[in-house]
């Protein structure tokens, strides 16, 4: 939701960004996924990463919570540099929530069981505490009545909402969304985007990799356009969508058939 902070964003100096990337580089063999990415995500902001496939958007997201380790550069969370090793990142991951394109709910657990998975296994919370919080979260995403259903019994949109609740159960400082609606039927995309919009209105810091331009335009505070591992352009939604300055941004929009 445009909280107005986008307009004052660049005017604020001195406040520590929630996440900052300094010249982050990553390659897979010979393929350069990230060619030196630098940007900031401020508290309470919804940053939308857009761009063609293979542009590095998902890689950047996965480097943020350490599912991929970067080759060089640094990523900071609340000003502290993130460790670049798997085990070190484990603690950090507890402070971030991630929602996957394929939902990745645990099929052998109920919806409630899935939402409880983090607090119980990782935070070692007692069963009742975890269960209570999990039911709260399921209510929040509108699926309290599906608590005892298994993922196989839920629609895609429902599964993704449970996945969001699961990530929220860890009380993260920031939520990372990796193309959350790309695997959904058009009818169910709306229900997921609504939950995300609600989260944004509540002030959650979010980084969203998405192809849903309407969502980015309406809910995003800061748009980052990526191509071939680098940031092409970044700015407020008005600026990017209405008057993009870079050729590649305009190209990208015309390929999508996006006319604003």
């Amino acid at each position: 939701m445009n909280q107005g902070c986008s307009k004052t964003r660049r005017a604020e100096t001195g406040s520590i960004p929630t996440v900052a990337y300094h010249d982050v580089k990553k390659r897979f063999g010979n393929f350069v996924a990230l060619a030196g990415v630098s940007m900031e995500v401020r508290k309470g902001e919804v940053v939308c990463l857009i761009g063609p496939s293979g542009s590095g958007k998902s890689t950047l997201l996965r480097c943020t919570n350490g599912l991929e380790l970067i080759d060089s550069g640094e990523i900071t969370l609340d000003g502290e540099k993130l460790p670049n090793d798997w085990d070190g990142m484990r603690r950090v991951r507890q402070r971030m929530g991630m929602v996957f394109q394929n939902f990745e709910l645990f099929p052998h657990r109920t919806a409630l069981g899935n939402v409880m998975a983090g607090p119980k296994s990782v935070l070692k919370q007692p069963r009742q505490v975890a269960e209570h919080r999990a039911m709260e979260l399921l209510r929040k995403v509108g699926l309290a009545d599906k608590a005892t259903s298994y993922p196989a019994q839920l629609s895609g949109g429902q599964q993704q909402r449970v996945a969001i609740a699961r990530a929220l159960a860890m009380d993260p400082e920031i939520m990372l969304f990796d193309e959350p609606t790309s695997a959904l039927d058009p009818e169910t995309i709306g229900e997921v985007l609504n939950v995300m919009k609600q989260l944004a209105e509540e002030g959650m810091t979010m980084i969203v990799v998405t192809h849903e331009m309407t969502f980015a335009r309406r809910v995003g505070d800061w748009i980052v356009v990526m191509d071939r591992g680098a940031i092409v352009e970044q700015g407020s939604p008005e600026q990017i969508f209405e008057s993009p300055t870079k050729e590649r941004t305009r190209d990208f929009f015309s390929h999508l058939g996006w006319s604003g």
Partner: protein
Amino acid sequence: MNYDWSVVWRNADVLWEGTKVTVFLAVTTMAIAIPGGIALALMRLSRIRTLSIASAVFVELFRNLPLILVIYSAYYILPVATGVRFSPIATAIVALGLNVSAYNGETFRAGIASIRQGQSEAGYALGMSRFRVMIDVILPQAVRRVLPVLASSWVSLFKDTSLVSVISVGDLAFESMRVRSQTFRVLEMLTAMAVIYWMLGYPQAKLVDWINNRYRVSE
């Protein structure tokens, strides 16, 4: 030639004892071989190269040897290698246990590997350690997935227990053939042996089919 089928009834108690030994061997072996198989699979997937290689060698070795040879070898090698006198039945359990663990090791490895990477990632994203991800996310799914294969593995094991008769373990095969030698009722006893194995094995085979069907439906 006249047949005397009553020899079967007269020795029913001996055959029953043999059957009990057969079932005992199968159950005990599987009780060892399932945790054994999981352990071997985890070793194979471990990042510690020594463990991974040791597991691979172990599994390849036992999968490429006849069980009857393993049984004979165990019979002669175990007492010398460990300095402990093994009873025939203990030898049998060791041989069967090693053998089936190896097969299960490969089964579990394939099962674990078949779970989508995204599942582990979802676990890691929640802050789970590799250990937690394996225990809470991967293994529960892998075990369900390999259940049909384990069921087949059980049926094979049940039949393979007959091989321990060669080292004089008193299973169904051994007792049947012993009564045959004592009474010279060859056809009757051997047929009885076949029929009893059939009666024990047929329902198990059908159960395996049922498990396979149920598994396919829920996919």
